[in-house]
């Protein structure tokens, strides 16, 4: 009988690989209840949903798991984990599968956002442009809004209490959106600063699936804030 079945499919290599990387993945705890799939906005996309994804893993359908582009519709939002009675984190599992795809086979712009982030920020503008645009916009406010003539946007201020990051899209695409934030901080009167390096708060290296890239960018940000001596790191999103 056995020669009629392809037993290699039942060897669940991907599942084992995930369990090695995430010891508390609890894949076998799945009751197949479907609460995850019923509340997942990505259910049905690419004919996949969180429950099916887990079943394919358990049944060793590794070729389907490694090939499906559903992993790029799963936003790792963890609503399935929030709903799961067994506490299974499908998002964490999808993250591992994302990392298994060879870099050259990943969506180009997704990988590129992280590659750029590793050089400093996810839009790839030079750090000098960030410093320039902050100064330029501030000057404009001083000129056009006399009531804000004392507005500040400090850069690399050693010993400031608060460090502020900024999503790179703001200085790059809509720099005027930084002004209300400065006005709020100015009104409250806190002692804050930007940094001229590693200033982007977007952290796109979380998404392609390589933990070493994520770690590298967070480590660089942490070193920057430590060097500035700030005791509070404000994330704007």
């Amino acid at each position, binding site marked *: 009988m056995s020669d009629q079945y392809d037993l290699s499919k039942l060897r669940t290599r991907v599942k084992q690989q995930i369990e090695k990387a995430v010891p508390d993945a609890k894949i076998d705890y799945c009751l197949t209840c479907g609460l995850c799939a019923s*509340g997942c*906005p*990505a259910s*049905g*996309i*690419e004919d996949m949903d969180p429950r099916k994804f887990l079943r394919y893993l358990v049944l060793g359908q590794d070729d389907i798991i490694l090939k499906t*582009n559903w992993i*790029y*519709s*799963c*936003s*790792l*939002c*963890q*609503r399935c984990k*929030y709903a799961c009675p067994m506490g299974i984190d499908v*998002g964490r599992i999808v993250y591992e599968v994302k990392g298994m795809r060879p870099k050259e086979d990943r*969506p*180009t*712009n*997704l990988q*590129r*956002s992280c590659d750029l982030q590793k050089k400093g920020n996810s839009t790839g503008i030079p750090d000098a442009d960030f410093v320039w645009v902050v100064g330029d916009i501030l000057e404009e406010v001083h000129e056009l809004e006399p009531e804000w003539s004392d507005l500040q946007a400090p850069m690399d201020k050693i010993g400031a209490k608060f*460090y502020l990051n900024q*999503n790179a*899209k*703001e200085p790059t695409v809509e720099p005027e*959106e930084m002004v*209300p*934030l400065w*006005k*709020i901080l100015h*009104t*409250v*009167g806190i002692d804050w600063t930007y940094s001229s390096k590693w200033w982007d*708060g*977007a*952290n*796109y*290296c*979380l*998404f*392609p699936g390589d*933990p070493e890239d*994520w*770690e590298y*960018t*967070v*480590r660089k*940000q*942490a070193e920057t*804030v*430590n060097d500035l001596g700030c*005791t*509070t*790191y*404000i*994330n*704007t*999103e």
Partner: protein
Amino acid sequence: MLYATLEGLRRFNIPHNFEVVSIITLYAQWIREGRLKVDPAWNTEGLKFSVQDPCKLVRQSLGDPVADDLRFVIKSVVGEENFIDVWPNKSNNYCCGGGGGALQAGFVANRRQHGKTKFDQLNATGADVVITPCHNCHTQVLDICEHFGGQWQTTHLWGWIVKALIR
């Protein structure tokens, strides 16, 4: 985003001499302390507001307390009667479909299919303005509103705080 920083510091055991906070928590704290004085009196037309809870900030990082702070700030700024919440909300809210790299990955039709759940939920509020305190959510909510024919404006939060600001 806050999650990548907070979870990255924890998961990779990265040494640091600072605490990581969300600007939303601080807005709420400063309004409560009277350091940030805001008045919704500007909203004479009764513009209605709703909100997106960013997954990475709320469900995945600080939970319902930051979602409550977010609502407290919006209500303080636009008037309590002018805020219309979504359902489900806070830690149980739906993802907008733009996160996790989906906006960068391409697969536009898939991304919009994901966003349809969010569109229907926001559209049901009938709000004039949807506040998205995360840049990814902002881009996605803007796109699904246009794509599916919504009527609301998609905006960041900080501009409304300044509009209501008393110096």
